[in-house]
């Protein structure tokens, strides 16, 4: 916790007469504890938000009995899960079986270290922060393989394969989307990346120089990849309860299952937070230079905003199949992003002024958005026809056409 806030705290403690070394150590302890407690409390809130949003989309009310607005429902559920009997399959591999949920949560909790919550409010501003997040994702993959194998259940094992296929596939476009930003800024520090998204007008920082405005294509690809990495709808084919049995954690019960659950919710929020930092300015916003605490507010607004969009998609989109999932990653997103990065690298070396480079990069990104939207639109139109055909009377097969957009039927 080097920086403004740690200095503030240790300076205040030193003012009280505490020796400097102890004051600094206390500041570290406070920072570490805050980060440690932050994640589980956040998870309680996230689960509540998900349940409320999905309920509203489905025209229900959602949890409303425990606490105000049902806020404490998740606490009650967690207590129930904690008090459950710890069941373990007889032929399961003890060490691997028990290590896997821990590793799963570990891989997500470690992300909190590099997330810039506000100006100077960051655990460690690693010089390879962006890569660090991607590397932690691969630790999560190992956790899924371990869970699938150690359960000694063929369905869990196959589900583990599915997880690995999806996470490895979408890691590639995700990294390429990040590379677009890193190529432009020349830094991999999250703190620096957020600081670079300021917009100075007449010496006043408006805080709206978001990379999302400059690179909508990279933003869209990162968003899709983040959906897949967080195992959110429409990429939640990894754990379709009724069709495929739950997934790699089928043999887990009680608190161990809750740990996978926790890891998944936290992962989607953290990926949203990373997206907000990379493309939506992080803690940048108007008046953030004058009132630093406003940066924290902006950051949480953006991160929760992205999370709400994820839940909105979760409530409204149908799930895709595994062949469609790999098709989108390898035949649409990866070639597009490789092309985009090549084009961007050439543009950045062109002997034209900065404004012309902005315009060219923006145009290239718009082209990427157009292609991705076209591919997704084609897919959903095809699915619409297919799902309608399934309910057609036999005599009318092939004669029905999907309704035009906006027509009620």
């Amino acid at each position, binding site marked *: 916790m080097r920086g403004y806030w740690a200095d503030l705290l240790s300076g205040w403690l030193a003012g009280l007469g505490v020796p400097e070394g102890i004051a600094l150590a206390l500041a570290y302890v406070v920072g570490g504890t805050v980060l440690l407690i932050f994640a589980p409390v956040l998870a309680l809130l996230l689960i509540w938000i998900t349940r409320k949003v999905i309920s509203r989309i489905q025209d229900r009310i959602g949890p409303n009995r425990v606490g105000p607005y049902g806020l404490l429902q998740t606490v009650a559920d967690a207590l129930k899960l904690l008090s459950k009997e710890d069941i373990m399959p007889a032929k399961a591999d003890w060490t691997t079986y028990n290590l896997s949920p821990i590793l799963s949560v570990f891989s997500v909790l470690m992300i909190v270290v590099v997330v810039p919550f506000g100006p100077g409010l960051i655990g460690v501003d690693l010089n*390879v922060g962006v890569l660090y997040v991607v*590397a932690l994702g691969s630790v999560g993959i190992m956790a899924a*393989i*371990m869970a699938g194998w150690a359960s000694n259940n063929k369905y869990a094992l196959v589900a583990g394969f599915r997880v*690995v296929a999806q996470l490895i596939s979408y890691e590639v476009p995700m990294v390429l989307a990040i590379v677009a930003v890193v190529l432009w800024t020349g830094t991999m520090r999250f703190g620096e990346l957020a600081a670079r998204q300021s917009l100075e007008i007449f010496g006043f920082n408006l805080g709206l120089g978001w990379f999302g405005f400059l690179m909508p294509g990279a933003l869209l690809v990162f968003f899709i990849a983040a959906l897949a990495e967080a195992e959110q709808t429409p990429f939640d084919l990894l754990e379709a309860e009724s069709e495929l049995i739950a997934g790699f954690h089928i043999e887990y019960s009680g608190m161990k299952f809750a740990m996978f659950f926790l890891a998944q919710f936290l992962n989607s929020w953290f990926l949203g937070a990373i997206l907000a930092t990379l493309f939506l300015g992080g803690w940048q916003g108007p008046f953030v230079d004058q009132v630093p605490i406003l940066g924290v507010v902006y950051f949480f607004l953006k991160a929760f905003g992205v999370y709400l969009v994820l839940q909105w998609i979760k409530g409204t989109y149908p799930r895709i199949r595994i062949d469609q999932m790999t098709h989108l990653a390898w035949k649409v997103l990866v070639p597009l992003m490789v092309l985009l990065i090549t084009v961007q690298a050439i543009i950045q070396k062109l002997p034209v002024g900065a404004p012309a480079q902005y315009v060219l990069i923006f145009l290239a990104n718009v082209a990427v958005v157009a292609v991705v939207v076209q591919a997704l639109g084609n897919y959903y139109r095809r699915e619409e026809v297919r799902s309608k055909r399934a309910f057609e009377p036999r005599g009318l097969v092939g004669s029905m056409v999907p309704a035009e957009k906006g027509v009620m039927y």
Partner: protein
Amino acid sequence: MPTLPVPTFTQVVFVLIAAFTVISGLGVVVARNLFHSALLLAATFFGVAGLYVMLEAEFLAVTQILIYVGAVATLITFAIMLTRGAMHGETNPLNRQWGKAALFAFLFLVGLLGYLGGIPWPAPFQAIQADEGLIARLGEQLVTRYMVSLEVMGLLLMVALVGAILLARDDKP
């Protein structure tokens, strides 16, 4: 009475990480189950990444986890899991020759130490600041001085990819 040198915090951490690496590396060899060996190999990669962090080579450490844990270990576990009958129980064949193997491994270590002791290592004459500049220089070296090796590696991976697809194809031409 000779005073014992008090180890610094860095040294303690180094010994812990090194011990973790060595023990999990030993575990790869002595584990009775092939899958455990693979997981312990991933743990060894982790330990090596930790050593890189101790050397303040963060980029190398993160790349190590990304490539070795994320790709190589995953690939190995996949290969093991797709092999029938190598899943559970004691799958690693053992024999009674561990004594000879240990002897030869020890002799190899002695030879290696003798060789390494003879190399005139360049003394670190300047502190290297690990920051973006270092990573940028690394990238520059990769596309200038080591360009041929980089391209050859890329070609090799491409050939492996094409070969894998050719093997997995249903309709043989």
